[in-house]
């Protein structure tokens, strides 16, 4: 049987109010409206499509976080994943990609997944490393920024997005951990039957010890904004010249 894990993270929605908590190191969670991280949703869809094209295949959605993340696990199950794993930590303390990846690697090891799919980055922390480090820790092939995937026996072929509009086709042997770029498919809506059926699917909870971590947020703050306006006068040529100077030396584009 082909076993695919999809790592899904619950992040603040883009329309959610974001106010900084009194601790000054994280958001005031009470006020946040959470959603499934965008690229994880594409990774989930990709996994479900692979499942539909493969004879005997199981998709497991895995999320790390407090109790509230069960909501997106259920959403994944409603869309068609077979079971869920909740890696339960009490807080948002663990923020460095290596610690996060170690937690996942430990939890996923015994499952022997053939494929781990994750979004290319989380929309809150945006490290963009977790999926790749997990692959390394589990001695899997790794690929990042996939814009298409195709299973072929014990290999997977992916098209990767590179810098400056370049693409690269790569083929690697399973097991593999691949991060998925947003937009490569059209994520489905869960059907109502799927929503009903999700209740009967298993969610296994593993309690995680979050004491070992390499990185800590010391302060979270909004950049101060100022409304300074500099007028650039002169002939069109002078304006262009001065504007380029501003871009180069002051704004540093």
């Amino acid at each position, binding site marked *: 049987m082909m076993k695919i894990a999809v790592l899904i993270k619950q992040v603040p929605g883009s329309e959610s109010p974001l106010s900084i908590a009194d601790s000054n190191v994280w958001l005031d969670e009470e006020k946040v409206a959470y959603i499934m991280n965008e690229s994880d949703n594409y990774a989930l869809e990709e996994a479900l499509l692979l499942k539909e094209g493969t004879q005997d295949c199981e998709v497991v959605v895995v999320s790390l976080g407090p109790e509230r993340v069960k*909501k997106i696990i259920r959403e994944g199950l409603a869309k068609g994943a077979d079971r869920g794993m909740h890696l339960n930590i009490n807080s948002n303390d663990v923020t460095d990609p290596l610690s996060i990846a170690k937690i996942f690697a430990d939890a996923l090891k015994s499952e022997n997944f053939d494929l781990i799919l994750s979004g290319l980055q989380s929309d809150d922390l945006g490290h963009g490393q977790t999926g790749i480090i997990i692959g390394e820790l589990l001695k899997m092939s790794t690929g990042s920024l996939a814009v298409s995937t195709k299973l072929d026996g014990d290999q997977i072929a992916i098209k990767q997005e590179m810098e400056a509009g370049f693409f690269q086709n790569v083929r690697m042997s399973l097991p593999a951990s691949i991060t998925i770029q947003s937009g490569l498919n059209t994520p489905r*809506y869960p059907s109502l*039957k799927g*929503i*009903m059926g*999700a209740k009967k699917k298993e969610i296994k909870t593993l309690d995680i010890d979050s004491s070992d971590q390499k990185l800590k947020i010391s302060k979270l703050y909004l950049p101060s904004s100022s409304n300074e306006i500099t007028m650039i006068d002169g002939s069109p040529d002078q304006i262009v010249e001065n504007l380029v100077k501003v871009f180069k030396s002051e704004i540093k584009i």
Partner: protein
Amino acid sequence: MDFILDNQQELVKKTAREFANDILRPGVIERDEKSLFPKNEIIQMGELGFMGMMVPEKFGGSGLDTLSYCLALEEISKVDASVGVIMSVNNSLVCNLLYKYGNEYQKNTFLPKLASGKSLGSFSLSEPQSGSDASNMKTFARRESSDFVINGTKNWVTNGTSSDIVILLCLTKKNVGYKGISAFIVEKTFDGLTTGNKENKLGIRGSDTCEIYFDNCKVPSKNLIETEGEGFRIALDILNGGRIGIATQALGIAQESLDRSIQYAKEREQFGKSISDFGIIQSKIANMAIKNEASRLLIHKAAILKDKGLEFSKEASMAKHFSSEAAMSNALECVQIFGGYGYVKETGVERLIRDAKITQIYEGTSEIQEKVIAKSLLKGD
């Protein structure tokens, strides 16, 4: 009593909201303007399970309760009230009637397709001379060996031209009043059934409403629901549930009116400030929100009573009356807040007034709801 939605209900609501915004919103103004039936959209809704939400899975439905249905229908109607009524008629009237009153043959034959959106149903009670006084109908089904032969004209049939199946209420016995009314499942392909032109309506222009003519239309007796003479009782019972659906459609319109008002009031500046800083605008917004909250509570109460198998007809009438009046009043206020920009089609809020109006008329006018409510309060036993 708690008013907190559970995980599953929230996911139903979220799915409906996302579907409505992604799939229904882009074409809503065009469908209204050109009176286009949302055919592909309804097929997709069927695939997701929105067309037979309360039908158990074994008959092809989603097996959800009435409350979940209301959550989804509100989100759909918020974006497109035409889709709302198409969904409401198929779910509340057609599927519910077949599931509750159909025999095994009828349920097995018709429900799986209707509940999954593979076919569409309509519910035909009204006639040109009998609207509020629905039992005063003339369409007559004469028994002929093992068939019925139907003659007459029905009108105002929602989904009339697009449906595959019509639940028809007509007489099988004359001069005995409502006791002569029976309910039939009529397939649109039966000989002797023709549909009239789509009505050119004020609102809900995406839904198709038409007359249906019966000219010696032969219907096999296995398509008779329950027994002769039971039709009116069945129709009234099912219309109670229908009223929860229309109340919810109205709430969707009322909520869209509020949401659009809040958004616009914050954007629009006059006299050097946001119009949302004016007390009069704030008062309008507060009053709209109060009406929506009250509508929602009335609707959810009726839905929960229905799910528990308790009497809910008075509550459904109250919900429909209150929500449809709220929809009309909120839609008018919304256009008022938009000023001149509300009076043109591009902003898409004038449609809310036109769509809201029907909710005070069909499945029992507001006057008839008052009659039902008063009768239930005054009946002395």
